[in-house]
């Protein structure tokens, strides 16, 4: 225990002995941790947005006014059997009018004029899909049903419904963010590993006399190596601290913005609630990166 404490103390002291190299190592560690945290957040954010979009109705099938109740019922049952359909909900003409009325001030006016001309809004069947990617296929299968004669059009046909486009875009963004995040994280991880490796290598070089003396007076292998591992880990702790200090104000501003513009309150709240866990993860990751690069430098350059 006393040895562990001495090793720790010596490593801690050594961290401050070569201020320039130490700062470089700390800064790159902070940048790496920031980038990793930023992309982790982005990925979670985009995924949750995708979820939100997907939760909304996927495909609306509009019914001709001539269709009888039995025909609609029949179609609803058939739709449920179509491959890729999860659920179907009927929205009557009256329901549609009510929804329009409730949607906004503008909607209320529109609903009033619609009532005056005898409610031209069609009844519809709202279809939820098991998988959004297949929206085109499901639409075609629905269209191919013999019962589909009562369908006037679907949201997929109508040009102004760009849900498919939106979803495809969100998926594209999600995949893009994940890919860019992964690549950038790996790149910065490697840079951090290399810079800390080099810092420790320099430390081993400048302290070679001290290492020789330690060996001479009978220091064990770990008494010589330990301080370098501690030193590497310290860069992780300092880097994580800087990253946290940078992240807090950014998080405040960005959190407010995302909540207002993207209705991302839940994701932002999740990060807020788990703040200390995130800090702990950053510290853990920083220590891991630092210790691993020190270990690599030691095994390559510190022959005992």
């Amino acid at each position: 225990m006393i040895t562990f404490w001495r090793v720790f103390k010596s490593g801690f002291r050594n961290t401050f002995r070569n201020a320039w190299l130490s700062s470089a190592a700390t800064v790159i560690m902070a940048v790496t941790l920031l980038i990793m945290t930023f992309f982790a957040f982005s990925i979670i954010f985009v995924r949750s947005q995708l979820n939100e979009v997907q939760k909304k109705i996927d495909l609306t099938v509009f019914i001709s006014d001539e269709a009888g109740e039995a025909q609609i019922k029949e179609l609803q049952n058939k739709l449920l059997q179509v491959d890729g359909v999860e659920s179907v909900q009927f929205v009557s003409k009256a329901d549609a009018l009510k929804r329009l009325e409730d949607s906004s001030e503008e909607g209320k006016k529109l609903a009033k004029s619609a009532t005056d001309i005898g409610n031209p809004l069609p009844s519809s069947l709202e279809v939820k899909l098991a998988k959004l990617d297949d929206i085109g296929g499901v639409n075609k299968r629905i269209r191919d049903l013999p019962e589909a004669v009562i369908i006037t059009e679907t949201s997929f046909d109508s040009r102004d419904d760009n849900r498919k486009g939106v979803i495809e875009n969100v998926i594209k963004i999600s995949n893009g963010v994940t890919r860019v995040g992964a690549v950038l994280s790996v790149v910065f991880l490697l840079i951090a590993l290399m810079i800390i490796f080099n810092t420790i290598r320099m430390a081993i070089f400048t302290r070679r006399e001290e290492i020789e003396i330690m060996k001479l007076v009978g220091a064990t292998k770990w008494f010589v190596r330990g301080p370098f591992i501690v030193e590497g880990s310290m860069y992780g702790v300092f880097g994580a601290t800087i990253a946290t200090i940078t992240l807090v104000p950014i998080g405040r501003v960005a959190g407010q913005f995302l909540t207002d513009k993207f209705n991302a309150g839940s994701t932002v709240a999740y990060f807020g609630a788990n703040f200390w866990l995130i800090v702990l993860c950053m510290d853990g990751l920083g220590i891991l990166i630092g210790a691993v690069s020190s270990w690599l430098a030691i095994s390559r350059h510190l022959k005992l």
Partner: protein
Amino acid sequence: MILLDRVTVIYPNKTVALSGASLHIQPKEFVTIVGASGAGKSTLIRLLIKEEVPTSGKIIVGSIDYDTIDKANIPHLRRKIGVVFQDFKLLPNLTVYENVSFALEVSGVKNAEIKRAVPKILQLVGLSEKAHHYPSEISGGERQRTAIARALVRNPKILIADEPTGNLDPKNSWDIIELLLKINRFGTTVVLTTHNKEIVDALKKRVITINRGRVVKDEKVGKYTL
């Protein structure tokens, strides 16, 4: 007890540093090893602290057979043998006191024990007044005494002094030699290597002469002759 039995060291470049050297040093002896530069003195010392391994032959120090000691135990072996060098090998950023206590720290000695042992040993080498000076603030003789204090603080059975007076003026050299004699009187085996004829002749102790890797002379009361 130090026993070397037909020890040969041949470097990868085929240089023969020691060639069948045998010697036997009894506990509590004071032995001086002399020889020209490159005769094999330094190799002999590196063998004793196991910084080098002989190509052939046997080395036994105390009850330890160097053939059987594993790597993990080398630090423990080194704690039993104190070594001082011509260039002192002190840590410049530590004070005299810290340099000495450092040797105890690396071997896991408790702080209370360090606080007891270091002042005692500094008093023995006459450095109590300079305990909080850095190596750059003291004389060469004082630096060597710091190195001796560091070597002695763990109560080694053997003290090896590799040309400890090489960098010192005659006055300081004699102070160091007298300190080594004092340490020897307390019961520590001292192995001294030196080029200083005056010192060797005045010591009137056992002298082992090495030439070209061989022990060519071993006299109970010897003189410096090459």
